[in-house]
């Protein structure tokens, strides 16, 4: 695969969705930064109370550090990081869905597909670059925005630590050293690829709907699944089968609940690797085969569909 053409194709995708991919994460980060500031400005702040609260938290962290409970400190940081990343991942997921539904539809709607296909870029490369953009690059942008926000917060925390150590003789530097900040963020970033593989059937299905639909690609993405589930429910009901296979499989495959996570965390004794392990455990070779079939169908339709 020609990497320079892949890079150019991904760059093209980012240009096309530039507004959304730039302003949504910036706005989200802005909300996290400015809403607390606005709350402080509007409600005022009791400096003594805040310092007391910070001092209390700092003492607790210092106590854990002194007791050398590195795992507990790591977990505190990791859970905080996950809490910060979650809104970015959730909003990023909505953006991903929108991207996949429109990525092969829009170029046919404005007929630019004829221009793109008149250039020496293969259809395989186009499908692969769109998949890579939607599955890795877009969530990467949102992960990046969350990481930058986290770094900003860490800078604020460092400034606060300096103030605490100078003014109140409370030192948090050893906590910073043992909180596993880099490895915690690293674990979150590591989940990018397992998430992409886990959700590959969904992405492939949306791409197929996008390349197939002449109108309303979102309906093409949703209605066949709904119809299948309804038909299966009726069949199960009339044939007295214990449970619907397809509906059950989908629900089982796409559900990662806090309970799953907790049980895995207990087994693993570490919440950081638990999340990663749980994602990897969800990946199923059958869904990978289905994804490959769906992607090939999307490719085949793009190659063979008459556009004018």
């Amino acid at each position, binding site marked *: 695969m020609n990497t320079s053409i892949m890079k150019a194709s991904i760059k*093209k995708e980012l240009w096309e969705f530039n507004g959304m991919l730039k302003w949504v994460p910036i706005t989200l980060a802005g909300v996290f930064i400015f809403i607390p500031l606005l709350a402080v400005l509007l409600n005022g702040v009791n400096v003594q109370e805040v310092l007391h609260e910070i001092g209390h938290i700092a003492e607790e962290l210092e106590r854990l550090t002194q007791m050398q409970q590195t795992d507990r400190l790591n977990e505190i940081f990791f859970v905080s990081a996950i809490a910060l990343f979650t809104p970015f991942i959730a909003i990023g997921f909505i953006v991903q869905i929108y991207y996949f539904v429109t990525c092969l539809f829009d170029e046919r709607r404005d007929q*630019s597909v004829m*221009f793109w296909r008149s*250039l*020496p870029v293969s259809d395989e490369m186009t499908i692969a670059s769109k998949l890579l953009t939607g599955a890795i690059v877009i969530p990467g942008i949102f992960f990046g925005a969350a990481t930058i926000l986290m770094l900003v917060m860490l800078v604020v925390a460092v400034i606060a630590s300096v103030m605490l150590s100078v003014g109140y003789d409370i030192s948090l530097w050893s906590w910073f050293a043992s909180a596993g900040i880099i490895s915690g963020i690293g674990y979150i970033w590591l989940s990018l690829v397992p998430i992409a593989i886990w959700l590959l059937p969904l992405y492939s299905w949306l791409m197929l709907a996008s390349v197939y639909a002449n109108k309303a690609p979102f309906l093409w993405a949703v209605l066949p699944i709904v119809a299948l589930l309804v038909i299966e429910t009726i069949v199960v009901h009339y044939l007295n089968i214990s449970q619907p296979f397809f509906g059950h499989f989908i629900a089982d495959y796409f559900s990662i609940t806090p309970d799953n996570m907790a049980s895995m965390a207990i087994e693993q004794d570490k919440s950081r690797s638990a999340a990663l392990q749980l994602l990897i455990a969800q990946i199923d070779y059958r869904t990978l085969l289905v994804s490959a079939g769906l992607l090939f169908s999307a490719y085949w339709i793009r190659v063979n569909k*008459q*556009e*004018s």
Partner: protein
Amino acid sequence: MSALISVSNVSKSFGKKQVLSSVNFSVTAGQIVGLVGPNGAGKTTCLQAILGLTDYEGEISVLGHHPRKDRVSMLNDVAYIADVAILPKWIKVSQALCYMQDIHKNFNLEKAKEFLAKTNIALTDKVKALSKGMVAQLHLALILAIDAKVLILDEPTLGLDILTRRQFYNHLLEDFYNEDKCIVVTTHQIEEIEHILTDVAFIQQGQIVLAQSTDEIKQRFNLVAVANEQVAQADDLKPLFKNSMMGLTTMLFDNQDKAALQSLGQVSVPSLADVFVGVMNKETC
């Protein structure tokens, strides 16, 4: 001279509708071929088959490449402008140039910029902010900057005003064409490009009904202004087409003795549009 494009027995149907039926023609270096036909004759389908954008029965070779199996390699040396304004609306001019440079090994960025400098198009403009004529100019700039050996144009000036149309074809000759390259163009405004065509192929209901050089066509066909009293005599020579207006009948003849035609009236060289109308209406005479 070996053919840059060779089309042999190409057929294509959509369901029961036969769109192309045993189409044969070839294009060599230096030729500018007009593929001319009425709406629905199969021109676009024929061009799309040449570009590997649709499947077909038969044999097509473009620069030695199979258009379907070897499309990407082929498109390094083949450029194409379709009949609709197909540049994406969201793209900026600078982005289009950058993308072309990234993916096309034969793209000359400086040449494209030089061409654009002669127009009112700024590098920061978005396609959606450009007029239809400017979009055509931008597309032409992108295509002319490719050192392609084959250029395929499908109604490239559709919907443009006459000034832009003339500019378009002037640039095509000045900035792209040389004797090592070939151009295949479809258009409804045949009279506007008649002077640049070296060859024409008339296509009707998916079949090539005439494919010849413009020089041979001008030798072969004659237009005669026949006086009313000689119409019956002229009819005996089986004109391809006749048109009566204001007491004068104009008849188009194919391969008739020039001396015999001169006895019927004033003989002139028909335009390609006259020949096209005559060939397409042959059955009505």
